């Protein structure tokens, strides 16, 4: 069965410091991986995706993620955190079967403090 794990419920970083939000996955076949962000009382906004190609994927708002096949990980990173990055972050894998259905991790709350 396909699954996504986000091992941290919350990540706290100081503004200006680098941040990492962890994600590991379990899939059969090629993984199609996504990161979404959710601000309070808002829907999910797409940040970035890995389909194929370079393992380092760059996305919106200065975020990037590194696909690591051997470790089955897709960690979200940003070199310098902003207070406005504080939000709920979801990692997701697109399920096999060609439906486009997403399987989400439990989400990680990122708190960036001034």
């Amino acid at each position, binding site marked *: 069965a396909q699954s996504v794990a986000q091992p941290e419920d919350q990540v706290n970083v100081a503004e200006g410091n680098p941040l990492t939000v962890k994600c590991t996955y379990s899939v059969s076949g090629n993984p*199609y991986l*996504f990161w*979404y962000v959710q601000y309070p*009382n*808002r*829907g*999910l*906004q*797409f940040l970035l*995706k890995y*389909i194929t190609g370079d393992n380092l994927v760059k996305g919106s708002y200065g975020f990037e993620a590194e696909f690591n096949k051997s470790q089955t990980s897709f960690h979200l990173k940003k070199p310098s955190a902003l207070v406005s990055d504080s939000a709920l972050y*979801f990692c*997701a894998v*697109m399920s096999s*079967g060609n*439906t*486009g*259905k*997403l*399987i*989400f*991790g*439990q*989400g990680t709350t990122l708190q960036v403090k001034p």
Partner: protein
Amino acid sequence: GAGVSQSPSNKVTEKGKDVELRCDPISGHTALYWYRQSLGQGLEFLIYFQGNSAPDKSGLPSDRFSAERTGGSVSTLTIQRTQQEDSAVYLCASLLRGRVTEAFFGQGTRLTVV
């Protein structure tokens, strides 16, 4: 439309009543998804539409839940005889099938059953 639109944004209903949640996807997007976001459960898939048919409704939690899509566009999620455990945010997403791409989410409907 410019984005995925959901209505109402908030709904408070009495236990036992029926509710209808509406989703208006991005024009031209053939695939439509309903997800549920509840505390402690993360984001869970409910149902997938391709055009007007629903080839995957495996996530619907009980027969009180149903959904339809008409004209390959608007979708309605109906919950009959609502229960308190139905309280959650219901998110709709759409995407253009045919290639692996990101789904676009609406802002959600927050349902509270009292």
